[in-house]
Every structure is written in C-alpha cells, then in structure tokens.
C-alpha cells in the first residue's frame, strides 16, 4: 500500500543551522530551538507588549495576560503562603513556557518541543535545583527536615526516611515524564487515528467507515488542547508545591 504509517517521524529533530561537531555529534540550531525562541517571543508579546497600555479597562490581550498572571499568582499563594511571592516569576515563566510550547505543538505540521524528554527533564531540573539550592542556602542543615516526616514514631523513621529520600529523588522524574509522556502519546494517537481515515479511504468499499476515525480525531484534538493546558497547570502547581518545601522544610 502506498500509504505508510510513521507516527514517530514528527518528533525528529531537523538541524536548521549547523554549528559544528563535537566528535561525531553534530551541534546544530534545530527546529526545536526555533520553536522555543518563538514561544519566548509570543510570551514576551503577550505579557510585555499587550500590557504596556496599562488600561484600567483591559483590552482582550491585556485581559488574557492578566487572567493568566492572577491564576498563577493564586496557585503560588495557595501552595507556598505569603513568602512564596519571590518564586512567582519562576513559576509564571515555567507555566507560560510549557503552555505556549504545548499549544504551538497543536498547530498542524508544527513541532511539539515538550514531547522530548530531555527538554522537560531540563525544566524539572531547574525546579529541583532551585528547591535544593534555595533550601540549603536558607535553612542549612535544617533543610534535611524535608526527609523526616513529622508525627511518625521513632522506630518507623528507619523506614520512612529512605522512602522520603527516594520520593524526593523521584520528583524530577515524575515532573518531566508526566509532561513528556502526555504530549508524546497524544500526538502519536492523533497521527495514528488520522492515518486510519486515509487508509480506509484508499481501501475501496471500506471508505464508508472513514468518518468514524475522523470523528475520533476531532474529539482527540479537543482532548489534546485540554491536556496541553492541564499539563502546564500541573507543572506550575507542582513547582509551587515543591518550592513550598524549600521555604518550609520539615512539613
């Protein structure tokens, strides 16, 4: 059959400008980096340019920017309390970056940057390193109280402390794998169901059935938009929750 399915092809990195080699590994400015720059540009446009008017009655773009900002400010305040305000820029930047990248990936023929584990792991590492560095700088050895759950009988601590340590180490993994897996799986599912439409149309009389996967593709697209927004929200919420540990270790 002429039509062949390759749902993974969309995630391939394509070098746009080659910057040289390290050993056999090519260093290049890929389309992934281009999309990241585009996302930063869009965020800057939305948050700086759209709100530069400072209208008391906001226009559409200003209202959008203000809604997103207040949403994240609320989330951070709920998770970390009053002194979590200093982390608001970090959480807001991460939220907007992930949100815009997810939504850019939903444009047909576009590339979903967050479908690469290394990108999401990098973002998660930023969060965890902030927690560890800030926690140690602020509380010193008291930061280790993160690993000691309160209200647990002494003998149980022998088991609970290792569990808490592994649990802490699992945080960057869960943070990055969740985002990457959701976006990757969603895009692959979309591609496969869209290919079903084409394959049924090619297969003669079976073409009568082609509206079924088409309807499913449309429904999946809507679901993917929900997932794109929700994953950005979950990433921001968990960042705020983990940062709360850096502010107040020892639960």
């Amino acid at each position, binding site marked *: 059959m002429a039509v062949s399915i390759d749902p993974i092809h969309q995630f391939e990195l394509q070098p746009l400008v080659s910057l040289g080699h390290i050993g056999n590994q090519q260093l290049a400015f890929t389309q992934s980096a281009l999309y990241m720059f585009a996302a930063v540009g869009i965020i800057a446009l939305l948050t700086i340019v759209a709100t530069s008017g400072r209208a008391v009655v906001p226009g559409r773009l200003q209202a959008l920017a203000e809604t997103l900002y207040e949403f994240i400010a609320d989330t951070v305040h709920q998770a970390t309390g009053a002194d979590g305000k200093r982390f608001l820029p970090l959480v807001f930047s991460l939220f907007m970056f992930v949100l815009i990248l997810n939504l850019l990936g939903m444009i047909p023929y576009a590339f979903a940057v967050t479908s690469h584990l290394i990108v999401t792991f990098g973002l998660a590492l930023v969060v965890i390193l902030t927690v560890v560095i800030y926690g140690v700088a602020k509380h010193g050895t008291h930061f280790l109280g993160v690993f000691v*759950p309160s209200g647990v009988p002494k003998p149980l601590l022998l088991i609970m402390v290792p*569990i808490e340590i*592994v649990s802490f180490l*699992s*945080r960057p993994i*869960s943070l990055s*794998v969740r985002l990457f897996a959701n976006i990757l799986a969603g895009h692959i599912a979309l591609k496969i169901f869209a290919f079903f439409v084409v394959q049924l149309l090619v297969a003669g009389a079976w073409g009568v059935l082609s509206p079924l996967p088409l309807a499913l593709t449309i429904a999946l697209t809507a679901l993917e938009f929900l997932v794109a927004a*929700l*994953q950005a929200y*979950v990433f921001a919420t968990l960042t705020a929750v983990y940062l709360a540990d850096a502010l107040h270790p020892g639960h």
Partner: protein
Amino acid sequence: MSGDPSGEGSGPEKAPADGDLSARLKRLETQLEGKRPKVASSERARNSASGGSAQLGQAMRLSTEFIAGVIAGGILGYIVDHLFGTKPWGMIVLLMLGFVTGIYNVMRVSGFSGRKN
C-alpha cells in the same frame, strides 16, 4: 442591627452628634452584610471551577507518581551497585524501596496518608 433603610439614610447627620461609635460600626456591618453574599457566591463558583481542574490535575499525577518512584529506585540501585560492586543486591533492595515509594507517593497524592502535597 435593625437595618431599616430610613434609619441608615438619616445616619450621617446624626452620627457626629451622638458619637456612638459602636452603633455606627453596627450600621456599617449591616450595610456590608448586604453586599457580602454576592461576593461569597462568586468566590465559591470560582473555587469549584478551579477545584475541577485541580482534581483533573491530581488524576494526571497518580500514574506518573507511581512510575517515577519505581524508576528512581531502579536508577539509585544501579548507581549503588556500580559504585560499591554489590551487583544484584543494591538493585533488588532499592527497586523494592522504589516500589514502596511509588505506593507512598500515590497514597499522598490521593490523600490516603492524611498529609497533603
């Protein structure tokens, strides 16, 4: 707390004369009371809306929290074995610990352990 509208209307002229602070405070309270339910209901609506997305987000967390615990245990086991040459044992012990951590993470997210985060 009688709260009749005519009494409120004549309040500002009479108030400086009798200087009854508590009466004025009470009047203010009744006026505020009239405005409060609207604010509260809109607040509640917003909370329930954000509560829905928060619950959906929590559901998204459950599966990966478990997997991440097992993966973290596995990676730790591999590193320990590599560093100390305790070939199978580090992996066995820490993978089991990772499994326990995964369950513990899920319990924490779903609120079974009685502690949040």
